């Protein structure tokens, strides 16, 4: 059973972060009352004509360049026909044989190993509306209909669920960095279809099944894992696999069959006569390339070489572009890199999670972070006071305040008065004879317990380095 290998390909749909829809001026804003973001064009009224949003094309090229694709000089849109109530024209305006981008790749990292996953193509198309299933009928809301999408089709280069997760995570990161999609999976802005087959080495690919519209990284991974296991089991039991579209039930953790494909889908595509061909010159491609931001991989390299951050820190810092940007802004203000990185990976990330905020919603900027980091490195405040300042900065009443002002106002400054600290050290030595005994008996690390006591006694304001030094003097003196 174990000699079966899985072959996995992904089709990822990303809603583009344009202001208006792909063929009309209706807003792409998420939510909104049902059928209030609709006009004759996106409702597919007879006689209404589409007009392609230039930004959709630009975003597709941008995503393509970020994913190392070639850009077709001549591209066009095609109609893909099928009937479904969420598709108002009964065809989806998409691209068949001349997608805007083709032949790219994405490097992913799994267990410390880099693997290159081929990108077959990226094309533009329109999203469908939303169906709301009730007990007796299905309600149709066209707000989301005709929002611009890119579909990113991978080569079947993925071999296990971990790679599926890493691919999705890395892809999401690239799309976020380029700004083409907000990738909010909970709002359906990023969804993927997972195609799975298994075969023995040297044998042709097996029968493929497809799981549609997975809307979280973990669901994509779990669905792939489940499907590989299921296929292996069917074959082990001597059963037959058949081509099918499956639906992943995230709550139950199982796939169930939506429909069995008896023959290939018949979409009878043909070139969209109402949309003129898209011609992209090499100069235009280069102009868009020039607008590409530094991508996560490059940033990680720079953080390591320029700031001496570890692999781990560099990876964590670049997970979110917003946080990575915050870091870059802070170090640009001449702040110590490691201190800034620690704040972002520690307190800031923790507070974002606690408050259920997005990385874009950190309520202060790089300047404030730099000021705070410098206060620490100059010994003006302790690191625990630093955490306190960050916490306060997340509170609305401190919005826009400078860390220095907060330190003063809240009296968080570090005590570096030698006499006062020395007195506290003596008290701590007197109160902890056992620890003192350990220290003098050769357990030098016991001193940190005493430093901790001094910090506690000073309510976190004592300069820990000074406390350490004074304790050593008193104990050895």
């Amino acid at each position, binding site marked *: 059973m174990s000699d079966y290998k899985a072959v996995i390909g992904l089709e990822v749909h990303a809603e583009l972060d344009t202001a208006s829809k792909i063929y009309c001026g209706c807003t792409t804003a998420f939510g909104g009352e049902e059928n209030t973001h609709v006009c004759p064009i996106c409702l597919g009224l007879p006689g209404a004509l589409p007009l392609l949003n230039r930004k959709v094309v630009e975003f597709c090229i941008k995503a393509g360049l970020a994913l190392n694709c070639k850009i077709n000089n001549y591209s066009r849109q095609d109609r893909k026909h099928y009937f479904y109530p969420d598709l108002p024209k009964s065809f989806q305006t998409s691209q068949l044989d001349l997608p805007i981008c083709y032949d790219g790749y994405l490097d992913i990292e799994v267990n410390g190993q880099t693997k290159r996953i081929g990108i077959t193509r990226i094309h533009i198309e329109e999203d469908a509306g939303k169906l709301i299933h009730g007990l007796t009928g299905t309600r149709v809301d066209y707000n989301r209909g005709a929002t611009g999408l890119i579909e990113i089709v991978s080569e079947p280069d993925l071999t296990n669920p971990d790679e599926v997760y890493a691919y999705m995570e890395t892809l999401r990161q690239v799309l976020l960095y380029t700004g083409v999609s907000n990738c909010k999976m909970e709002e359906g802005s990023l969804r993927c279809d997972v195609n799975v087959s298994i075969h023995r080495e040297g044998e042709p690919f097996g029968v493929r099944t497809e799981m549609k519209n997975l809307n979280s990284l973990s669901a994509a991974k779990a669905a792939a894992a489940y499907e590989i296991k299921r296929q292996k089991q069917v074959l082990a039991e001597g059963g037959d696999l058949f081509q099918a579209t499956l639906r992943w039930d995230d709550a139950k953790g199982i796939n169930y069959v939506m429909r069995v494909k008896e023959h290939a889908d018949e979409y009878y595509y*043909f070139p969209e006569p109402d949309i003129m061909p898209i011609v992209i010159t090499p100069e235009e491609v280069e102009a868009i390339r020039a607008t590409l931001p530094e991508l996560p991989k490059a940033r990680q390299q720079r953080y390591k070489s320029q700031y001496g951050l570890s692999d781990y820190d560099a990876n964590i810092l670049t997970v979110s572009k917003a946080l990575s940007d915050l870091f870059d802004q802070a170090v640009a203000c001449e702040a110590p890199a490691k201190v800034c990185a620690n704040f972002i990976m520690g307190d800031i990330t923790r507070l974002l999670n606690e408050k259920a905020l997005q990385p874009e919603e950190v309520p202060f900027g790089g300047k404030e972070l730099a000021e705070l980091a410098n206060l620490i490195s100059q010994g003006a405040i302790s690191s625990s006071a630093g955490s306190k300042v960050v916490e306060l900065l997340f509170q609305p009443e401190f919005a826009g305040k400078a860390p220095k002002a907060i330190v003063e106002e809240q009296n968080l400054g570090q005590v570096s008065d030698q006499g006062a600290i020395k007195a506290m050290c003596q008290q701590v030595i007197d109160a902890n004879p056992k620890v003192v005994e350990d220290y003098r008996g050769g357990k030098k690390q016991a001193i940190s317990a005493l430093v901790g006591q001094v910090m506690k006694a000073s309510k976190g304001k004592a300069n820990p380095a000074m406390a350490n030094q004074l304790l050593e003097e008193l104990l050895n003196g």
Partner: protein
Amino acid sequence: MDNMQKQELASLTLTQAAGLLAKGETSSSELTQLMLERIAASDNNAYITVNAEAMAAAEAADARRRTGQSLSLVDGVPMALKDNFCVRGMKTTCASRMLENFVPPYTAAVAEKLADAGTVLLGKVNMDEFAAGNATDTSYFGPTKNPRDPRRVAGGSSGGSAAAVAEDTAYFTMGSDTGGSVRQPAAFCGVVGLKPTYGRVSRYGVVAFASSLDQVGPLNKTVEDCALTLSLIAGCDPRDASSLPSPVPDYLAGLKGAEGLKGLRVGVPQEYMGPGIQEDIRQNVKKLISDLQAAGALVEECSLPQLEYALGAYYVISSAEFSSNLGRFDGVKYGYRAKGYDGYDDMLRRSRSEAFGDEVKRRILLGTYTLSAGYFDAYYLRAQKARTLIIEDFRRAFGKYDILLTPTAPVTPWLLGTAFADPSQVYAMDMCTVSVNVAGLPAISVPWGVDRDGLPVGVQLIGPALSEDRILQAAHGVEALANSGQIPGQKGGAAHV
């Protein structure tokens, strides 16, 4: 006003009506009232919907004129639109049960332009269902009769548009032409019909038949009226991606009657003068050739060998696009929904099957067939390639000739209810007009005499892309020859009402 005066007023050309309005010798209200009376009295079934607001619009036009605030030369002139032009708040049926009660919330670009010029919309006129046909006999609301002989078809698909002009129930009308749907009914009813260059007039808001072939065009009583109407509707529309950004010339400036024919190089493609053409139509065209020569034109027989394939290319492309464009009629957002269905798929099938007529179904099936797996390359792709060769054939011809002259239709209007052995015989009637749409060119049909039964014959003048001014000039010349009695039956023909 006695009946004679009324008849005189009704038979005015657009240009004449505009002139009388300018001089204050008539009013928009008077003309509109007269048209509405005539519409009510006519048995030709040209109209599907009469605009309840027409009189109010006429009064508004008169008020503007009184205060010197007329919107244009044609402010207050009553006209009608083919019932595939969307007009906000007014039924747009496409002569189909599917859209029997469809009231669009928006207005077609051309309808907007005509309203901005102050013209009064009398109503929506009859057509073949979804414009699929060439006799206006597939309309859900019954056929339109030919005013020149009410036993006969008006042609189509813009049969209501042609009939309304011919029976004087509108001073001009708008139609749409996918394979001859303006020119052929114009020829059948003895009026002028122009199919502009693809992209010259906005298609926005006109219910699509075949998107890469459709073009909006006017039907008029005279070539001058046609030039005037074109100048009202031509121009780039940013809402239609296929709209051409080229400037709009003065279409009236070049109209010089028979003078305009001097030195004109005219090619007569032999492909459209063969045995498929009714003999007396061929004789009429031959008469025109000699008259043109007499007027100083240089006329030559020529050959465009690829035209032989135009009908095949046309029916493949138009049916494919038609089937695609009509997918949206699914009983969900608008249009007919069947009763007593069981589930979504059954609802969809029943609604479409019950609401589409036979001809519409036939073309949807044909289109779906030619696009479906295994047939695409043999039909659709070949048709698109044939299209390339047809375009090249025309380009070569226009290297030698200013315009091409052909009959508009191979026959004159047939009797309503004529039983054809199979639909392919009816489709073949489009042989002279479809190549123009396949190549995206402008062409005009001008009345040129009658056949042996006194039925109108039209000739078609085809020009290169954006040569509307040139073909209007030539058509104006042909019209002048006809009016000077060169061809019998042209003026006040026996069958004219």
